[in-house]
């Protein structure tokens, strides 16, 4: 194969008409997109086995329009609620939601916790860049305390969410967190999440060099990835550390992996009984 005919090994998964990306240079979305597609390929699944759902924001544009599959690009904050109806109508399809921290935990926080509580089978990938990127760097529920943004010009007065803890508390079957510095671990975890029979949530801290890196002074894309590397501590290591030592650290790993009754299966059983 000559270099001129070389095609990216994942190009076959990209919608032919999706010629351009709206992502800024250095965005973490590419790492995320590859992680998802590699996980699907690695499991021997096809994109036609999935319906992808996304909300509004930069992360929502990972599947929409790029993935050559059924994709529903929804209103802001609501992808999980739309996905719930899709899963109910197409129980044999795998439903995956890909959206950002603002979409899933601010405007859409209610849907996130209730879907976790219901334990409906779907994979939710939450791309956490700690800021509203698409609209120009406004404070998010994940922005660190004290950070100056365009809507917190005197510093963020609010505490950030620990999203994975939130979803764990709401009752999800599977909860994990990685950063874009951990593409291989992330890929393995997404594979597990896809196979999980229940609500599976993967939070991925992802660099937004343009809005977050610049404002925090952490720097460009490479510097942000190095920062993730320096700040990350695995769950196993974190369990031996004091709360003081864990302050400002990013605990990564798989936090929850349990089996419990799943909504769509329970509803199918109710239906079978009612139809008998």
């Amino acid at each position, binding site marked *: 194969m000559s270099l001129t005919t070389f095609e990216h090994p994942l190009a076959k998964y990209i*919608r*032919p*008409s999706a010629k351009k990306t709206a992502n800024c240079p250095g965005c973490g979305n590419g790492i995320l997109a590859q992680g998802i597609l590699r996980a699907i390929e690695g499991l021997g699944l096809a*994109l*036609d086995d999935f*319906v992808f*759902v996304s909300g509004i924001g930069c992360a929502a544009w990972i599947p*929409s*329009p790029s993935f*050559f*599959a*059924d*994709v*529903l*690009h*929804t*209103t802001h904050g*609501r992808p999980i*609620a*739309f*996905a*719930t*109806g*899709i*899963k*109910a*109508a*197409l129980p044999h*399809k795998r439903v995956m939601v890909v959206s950002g921290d603002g979409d899933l935990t601010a405007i859409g926080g*209610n*849907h996130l916790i*209730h879907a976790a509580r219901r334990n409906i089978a779907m994979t939710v990938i939450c791309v956490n860049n700690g800021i509203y990127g698409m609209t120009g760097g406004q404070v998010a529920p994940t922005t660190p305390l004290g950070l100056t943004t365009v809507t917190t010009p005197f510093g963020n007065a609010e505490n950030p969410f620990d999203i994975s803890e939130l979803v764990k508390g709401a009752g999800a079957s599977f909860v994990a967190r990685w950063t874009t510095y951990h593409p291989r671990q992330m890929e393995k975890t997404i594979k597990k999440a896809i196979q999980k029979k229940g609500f599976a949530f993967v939070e991925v801290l992802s660099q937004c060099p343009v809005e977050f890196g610049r404002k925090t002074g952490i720097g460009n894309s490479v510097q942000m990835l190095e920062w993730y590397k320096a700040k990350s501590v695995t769950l196993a290591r974190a369990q031996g550390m004091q709360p003081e030592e864990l302050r400002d650290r990013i605990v990564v790993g798989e936090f929850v992996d349990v089996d419990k009754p799943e909504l769509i299966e329970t*509803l199918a059983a*109710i*239906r079978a*009984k*009612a*139809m008998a």
Partner: protein
Amino acid sequence: MSNRAVLTGRHFMMGNIACAEGALAAGCRFAAGYPITPATEVAERLAERLPAVGGTFLQMEDEIASIAAVIGAAWGGMKAMTATSGPGISLMLENIGFALGTETPCVIVNVMRGGPTTGIPSVELQGDVIQPRRGSHGDYQIIALAPSSVQESFDYTVEAFNLAERFRTPVFVLSDAFLGHMREEVIVPPAGQIPIAERKRFPAGVDVETLPGFLDEDVAPMPIFGEGHKSHVTSSCHDAYGRRNVIDASALDVFVKKLNDKIVKHRDEIVRVASDLEGAEVALVGYGSVFRCAQAAVEAGRAEGLRLGWFKLGTIWPFPDKEIAEAAARVKRLIVLENNLGQLVHYVQAAAPRCEVRFLPPRVLGELHEIDYILKAVREVHP
């Protein structure tokens, strides 16, 4: 269709129950909702009945999630609906716009109650009549039907599903607290005798890159999920292939106009009215439960020699302006009865500019128009 879904026979039934039964007869197999007075019986009936006919009911965390789940299920190939009241509709409006923009067939029942705001849950008001037309942001056309009997609660819900399927669009059923809780006779025909429409589907084996699935005035086939069409569905401005274009105003121009024209072009197929203007000089115009008062007043008025007639709007949107104009040409005056402060009366006047149009709210908002009270208003203008 399984007979289990169609309760063929004569029933004494509540309006809200008839609405749920109409949905089941029309083929609705997914419903999502959130408890709200005075619409709750619709959800309760569907929750009880859907599993036995292979369907699903989900009580969601709020009305926003309810309509979102309905739209998701519709893209999964199902006929789907939700039922709520004014406060719930207010929450749903953004996603109803989504359904319009993505051409998603679904049915939204609004059992109207006394508002604004939380108002009085159990008192009727026809306060949400303009809301479906203009409530969601942007320019669009909507379909809204207003049943005025329990039988029509059944019939119009079937019709709402048929119109939703035919035109790939959300359709409103504007019921109200009187009608929803009223009990009357309902005749449910045998399953085979109820006309049922099904959406035009994308051909098998075709993907959305090669065949338009959106923005056709004559309704594009729907590339529903799960069949390998690789559909890209976005409510952001898109072209006929579903490809997002948020850069060109010319793309927006096509997007807005095609969706609009899809309904406008076919308004004659959608609009349904009824009238009895035999020998009438004055016509009472009404819809929903208030129409029943108008009809009763016409009967009583004629008995005492008044030259009265009635005109019923079965369809509220698209507005039956042509039909109103024709009726107005046959009488001297129109009296528009509404249980609100005057919402459709302005559309009636606009449709009949040369006719004298009066507005008649009930004596007390939220109560029925008494017959004596209506006839007193008639005598004031009767030639």
